[in-house]
């Protein structure tokens, strides 16, 4: 009994619980398995198909991705003769790590009186955005290290997209910070107890959401790995578990950004239930995630230059409008406690 208590106390210690269980690794793993399954099932329903079925048939093939991952695990890692082998293998691993880094500063409510924030700082929004901008760099490096023309073009496309979504993304996040006068996400969430930011500043929410979709290469902005001309973009030459990793990166990125989106615009863990405030948060996150993957069955993909134009014309303008709106509201007397 003592031993069990010891294990429990170790597991429930914030420095273990947050990165490992919630909102960290295990939650991400479960969410991604469910999300990809849901994505395929929703698309199948719309497209008059059945979708994944044969693995765990009784539950509609929910563990299909797990089976795929196992298969990837036992496949041979193929590196090209002329590729830069060290960087080729290291960059997916670093990209995956970099994708998960923002979780250190994004708060996820509280569970059984444990504050679910690994690293409380008063500039957590800035830190989260800065850490999230690491991943695209490694995707570009993947494209370069593969020594493949399709991968190279795909990596360059990621670079092109990055410059067009990051500015509106950061500006719209900034407008939220201006609105509440704080760069601390916990402050931002606590200020939304009565009314959510999406109702006060819808421009910022819209611009953030579209930039988020663009940065995680969901449809209609699935341009980096657009398979009809680039095979798989920067990921063309990857095989086995490395392919599993690089395919997981956009989904993990989507999860991290959705967490941030819910915290910034949809009131985070409010309305909270005592002791279990994370439940409201995770429900909102799942809804946003499902909506993001549902777009796949509705839209084709935009052309690269059209996506860049959307980034710089529409989203940039919208994020500027959202900043102006925030400033006007501040000048008019502010919101809530501020």
């Amino acid at each position, binding site marked *: 009994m003592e031993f069990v208590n010891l294990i429990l106390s170790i597991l429930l210690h914030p420095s273990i619980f947050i990165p490992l269980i919630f909102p960290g690794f295990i939650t991400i793993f479960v969410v991604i398995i469910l999300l990809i399954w849901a994505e395929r099932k929703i*698309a199948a329903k*719309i*497209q*008059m*198909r059945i979708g994944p079925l044969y693995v765990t048939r009784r539950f509609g093939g929910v563990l299909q991705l797990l089976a795929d991952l196992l298969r990837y695990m036992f496949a041979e890692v193929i590196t090209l003769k002329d590729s830069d082998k060290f960087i080729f293998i290291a960059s997916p691993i670093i990209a995956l790590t970099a994708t998960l880094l923002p979780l250190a500063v994004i708060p996820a409510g509280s569970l059984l009186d444990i504050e679910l924030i690994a690293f409380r700082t008063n500039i957590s929004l800035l830190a989260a955005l800065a850490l999230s901008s690491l991943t695209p760099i490694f995707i570009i490096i993947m494209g370069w290290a593969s020594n493949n*023309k*399709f991968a*190279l*073009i795909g990596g360059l496309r990621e670079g092109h997209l990055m410059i067009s979504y990051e500015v509106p993304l950061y500006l719209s996040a900034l407008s939220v910070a201006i609105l509440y006068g704080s760069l601390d996400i916990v402050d931002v969430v606590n200020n939304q107890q009565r009314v959510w930011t999406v109702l006060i500043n819808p421009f910022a929410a819209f611009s953030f959401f579209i930039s988020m979709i663009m940065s995680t290469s969901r*449809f*209609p902005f*699935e*341009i980096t790995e*657009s*398979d*009809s*001309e680039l*095979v798989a973009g920067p990921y063309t030459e990857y095989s086995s578990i490395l392919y599993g990793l690089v395919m997981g990166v956009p989904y993990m990125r989507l999860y991290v950004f959705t967490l941030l989106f819910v915290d910034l615009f949809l009131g985070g863990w409010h309305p909270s239930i005592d002791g279990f405030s994370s439940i409201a948060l995770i429900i909102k996150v799942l809804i946003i995630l499902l909506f993001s993957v549902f777009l*796949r*069955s*509705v*839209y*084709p*993909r*935009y*052309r*690269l*230059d*059209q996506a860049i134009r959307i980034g710089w014309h529409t989203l940039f303008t919208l994020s500027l409008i959202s900043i102006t709106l925030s400033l006007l509201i501040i000048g008019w007397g502010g919101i809530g406690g501020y």
Partner: protein
Amino acid sequence: MLKQRNSEKEIELFIGPQHPASGHMRFIGRVDGDIFTNFIPDPGWVHRGIEKIAENRKWVQIIPLVERAAILDAANMNIGYVMALEKLLDIEPPPRAQYLRTLLCEINRITSHLYGFGIAGIMIGSSTFYMWPFADREPLIDIAQLITGARLTYSYMIPGGVRRDLPQGFREKVLKALKYIERRLNNDYFRIFFDNPVTKARYQGVGVLKRNDAIKLGIVGPNLRASNVKYDVRKVEPYAAYPELEFDVAYREEGDCYARLLVRVEEIRQSIKIIRQILDKLPQGPIIHKKYEKLISLKKLEECQKTGILGLPAIFTALRPPAGEVISRVEAARGELIFHIISTGELRPYRLRMVTPSFRNIVLFRELISGARVMDFPAIYGSIDYFPPESDR
């Protein structure tokens, strides 16, 4: 040229033959930034030598052979060859056979266009518009199976007529299927794809083929009609039952990718109209020319009257048309199909030439994609509905 080859400004991109979007062919493009400065199609990866094989086949054995050029468009390939053969034999099939041939040709035109839609959809990333048209071919394929007994390669038309008559209860099944296709085409397809803002952004104003260029390059089929040329072999040189049927030639004026797709939508509507007319006007009578009817055994004829299935009479294996040279033209789903046959009065043709519509449209790759953006390549490819096996023969 050599200097340009070595310059580091451009990279040479080999797309295919093992590529998700190349089909059974290769493209060699030179990319400068995001623009193809030069784009050359390199076909021939599925060349099966149909023309040469035909020289070693008996006349009826060539019927299933020419169908293999475009499996999705088998009936139109079939009627082209059989018409040429009938010109050599100097016979005219009875009216009922003409109508049945036209019926199958129009069903094939619809399924072929739906297949083209599916490919166009997945090429610009719409997985829903990939699955829908592919699945919606099914009711029409079922109808074709009712008529011919086969789903894709029918070998339905034989010299002098057709192999089978219609089964019972056929009319209701066809009307039901047509109603379904019409509903899907006019509502669902437009909602999910043709009216989708992303689709319009990808297609409108992309890959514009001007009227003069289209005529000069000898483009055929829906691609030509999308550039405001009202040329359709069914109207220019009517064959089978087309002279007695009412339909319009679908055309658009813009000449871009979107126009090419909408022309196909309109053609499907016209095909539905034609099939409805055929069901109303279908004359009674024999399904094979009386010259051959005489040669078939009485027992088999009685069986045919009972079941509607004639099969392939054994006398056709010894078919020996007189010496001569003929040309036949038909409008296949992808455009004008030409058969040129030289006969020396033997059991086999001396030479069979088959000019397929895809082969005449292949030049569009060079014309439209040179100068376009890299991401326009799949959009244009999808819109011209190019089918490598049909081109390579």
